[in-house]
C-alpha cells in the first residue's frame, strides 16, 4: 500500500465552514420560499467537531486517506446514521442508542483458526496500537461523509488469530438484544445483522476495526464498542456493535444481500458504473455540500484495493 502523509492534527480537521455554509444556504432557500427576510435566519446552530466530548484517545498516528476533503462535522456524523437496530429513521440511532450498554462486552473470535477465544473488548483494544484514519464513507443511498476513525487494522487481529487454510471468509455478527436494541423487536431485517469479507479483502491494510471517531470513543449510534470500516465498500458493509468474528470456508449469507440480492451484492464495492436498481450510483451527495459529486471507483481507493478483484466481472459480482 502506498504510504500517505499523516501529519494532521485534531485542530486541522475541524470543518465548521462547510457546515455553516450549508445552514445558510438552506435558511435562505426556505426563507425565500416563504417570503421571509432571509439574512437574519442563518444564526442556526454552530455545531462542529469541537462540540463533541473531549478526546479520549491521546496522540495517535494519523493517516489522511481522504485527500484534501474536509471531514464531515461530528454533529452530522453522530446524528445521521443507518443503524436499523435502533430504528429505521436516520435520526433514530442518535435518539435511541444512548442507553445501550457497551460494557461489559466480549468478542468471540472463532472458526477456522488456531487461536479461538472470547476476549473482553478492553483487552482486545489494548493489544493493538490505535491509529486515526480519515476515510471517505459512501452510503449505498448515494450520500457520503468523510470520517476520522480511530481503530486498528483488521489484518492485525486476523494474524493473531492464525487462520487455517480453510479460512476463506470472515463473518462479523452484531449483538442480538432486542431489549437494548429496540429496532430488533421489528422484523425489518433478519437479526442479528451479519456481514462478511473475503479473507484477502479482510487482510487489506485499509480494513479497519474502529473503536472511536474524532478522537473519542465511538458514539453508540456509530457502532460502539467495535465496528468494521471498509472504505472502498458501501456503508452497509460496516457492521456495528460486533460480538463475533468467525472464520469460515463458504461465502456467508449477509443481511442486506439476503433481504434483496438484486440490490445489495456480497462485495458491495463502491462502483459508479453499477447502479442500484432504485438510484444511480454515478454521483453522491457529500453531506454538507449542495452539488452532487462524481462517485469514484472503489470510493477513491482503487490503488489500494482494485487488485483484489482482478479478473472478476464487477457488474456480476457487485
Amino acid at each position, binding site marked *: 500500500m502506498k504510504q500517505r502523509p499523516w501529519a494532521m492534527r485534531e485542530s486541522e480537521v475541524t470543518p465548521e465552514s462547510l457546515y455553516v455554509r450549508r445552514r445558510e444556504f438552506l435558511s435562505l432557500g*426556505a*426563507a425565500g420560499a416563504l417570503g421571509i427576510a432571509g439574512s437574519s435566519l*442563518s444564526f442556526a446552530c454552530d455545531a462542529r467537531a469541537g462540540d463533541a466530548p473531549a478526546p479520549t484517545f491521546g496522540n495517535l498516528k494519523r493517516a489522511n486517506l481522504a485527500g484534501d476533503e474536509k471531514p464531515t462535522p461530528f454533529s452530522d456524523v453522530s446524528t445521521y446514521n443507518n443503524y436499523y437496530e435502533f430504528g429505521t429513521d436516520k435520526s433514530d440511532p442518535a435518539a435511541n442508542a444512548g442507553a445501550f450498554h457497551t460494557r461489559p462486552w466480549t468478542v468471540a473470535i472463532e472458526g477456522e483458526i488456531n487461536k479461538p477465544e472470547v476476549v473482553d473488548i478492553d483487552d482486545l483494544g489494548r493489544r493493538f496500537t490505535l491509529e486515526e484514519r480519515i476515510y471517505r464513507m459512501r452510503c449505498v443511498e448515494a450520500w457520503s461523509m468523510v470520517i476520522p476513525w480511530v481503530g486498528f487494522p483488521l489484518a492485525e487481529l486476523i494474524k493473531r488469530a492464525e487462520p487455517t487454510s480453510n479460512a476463506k471468509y470472515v463473518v462479523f455478527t452484531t449483538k442480538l438484544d432486542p431489549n437494548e436494541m429496540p429496532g430488533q423487536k421489528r422484523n*425489518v431485517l433478519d437479526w442479528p445483522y451479519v456481514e462478511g469479507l473475503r479473507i484477502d479483502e479482510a487482510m487489506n491494510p485499509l480494513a479497519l476495526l474502529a473503536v472511536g471517531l474524532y478522537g473519542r470513543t465511538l458514539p453508540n449510534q456509530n457502532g460502539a464498542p467495535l465496528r468494521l470500516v471498509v472504505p472502498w465498500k458501501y456503508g452497509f458493509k460496516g457492521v456495528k456493535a460486533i460480538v463475533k468474528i468467525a472464520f469460515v470456508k463458504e461465502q456467508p449469507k449477509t443481511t442486506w444481500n439476503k433481504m434483496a440480492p438484486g440490490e445489495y451484492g456480497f462485495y458491495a464495492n463502491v462502483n459508479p458504473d453499477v447502479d442500484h436498481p432504485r438510484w*444511480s450510483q*454515478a454521483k453522491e*451527495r457529500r*453531506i454538507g455540500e*449542495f452539488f*452532487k459529486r462524481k462517485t469514484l471507483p472503489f470510493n477513491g481507493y482503487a490503488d489500494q484495493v482494485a487488485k483484489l478483484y482482478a479478473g472478476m466481472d464487477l457488474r456480476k459480482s457487485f
Partner: protein
Amino acid sequence: MDRARLQRLLKPSVFVASLVPLAKVGIDAALGNLSANPIAEVMNRFGFWTLTLLLSSLAATPAKTLFGWTALLRVRKMLGLFAFFYATLHFSTYLALDQAFDLGDIGDDIVKRKFITVGFAAFVTLVPLALTSTDRAVKRLGFRRWKRLHRLVYLAAVLGVVHFVWRVKADYLEPALFAVTLVALLLSRLAPKRAVSTGTPRADSGEERAA
C-alpha cells in the same frame, strides 16, 4: 359556537392547517433541524404531505356515504389542490435541489428507476386535475366529462402510494399504512353502491361535486 359559524371557519382552518407542514420546513431550515441531509429530508416531508392530503381528499366521499358527514366534501377541492401544491414542491425539490436541473440524470431516473417512473406519472396525472379545478372548467367541460376526468385521482393516488412503497429499502410500515388506507378508501366506494344500486350505474351519490 353555532353551526353556521363553524361552517364558515372550516375552509380557512383547513387552509391554514395545510400550510403548517410548509411553515415547519421553513422553521426547521432556519433552526438547522433538517438533519445532516436537508435536501432528502425536505423531499421526504413534501412527499409525505402530498400523499396525506391526497388520501384526505379521497376520504370525503366515504365520509359522506358511510357516516353522512359532509364537512370533508366542502374542503375536498382545497385538499386536492394542496396535495398538488405539495407534489409540486416535492418534484421541484427533486429537480432543483437534488438534481440541480441535470436533465440527463433526471431523464435517466424517470426511465430507469421504476419508483421514480411511477412517482413522475403520479405527478403528471395530477396536473390536468389541478388545471381543471375551477368552476369555469367544470362548465366548459360539462359535469359528466369533468367528473370522468377527475376519476384520474384514483390513478394518481395508486401511483403515488406505489412510488412510496418502491422507494423504501426495508421498513415498509409507513408506505403500508398509506396503502391500507388507500385500499380502504377505494373499497368503501364499492360497498354502499352495491347496497343501493338497482340497475342505475351512476348512482354513486357520494361522487357529486362539493357545493
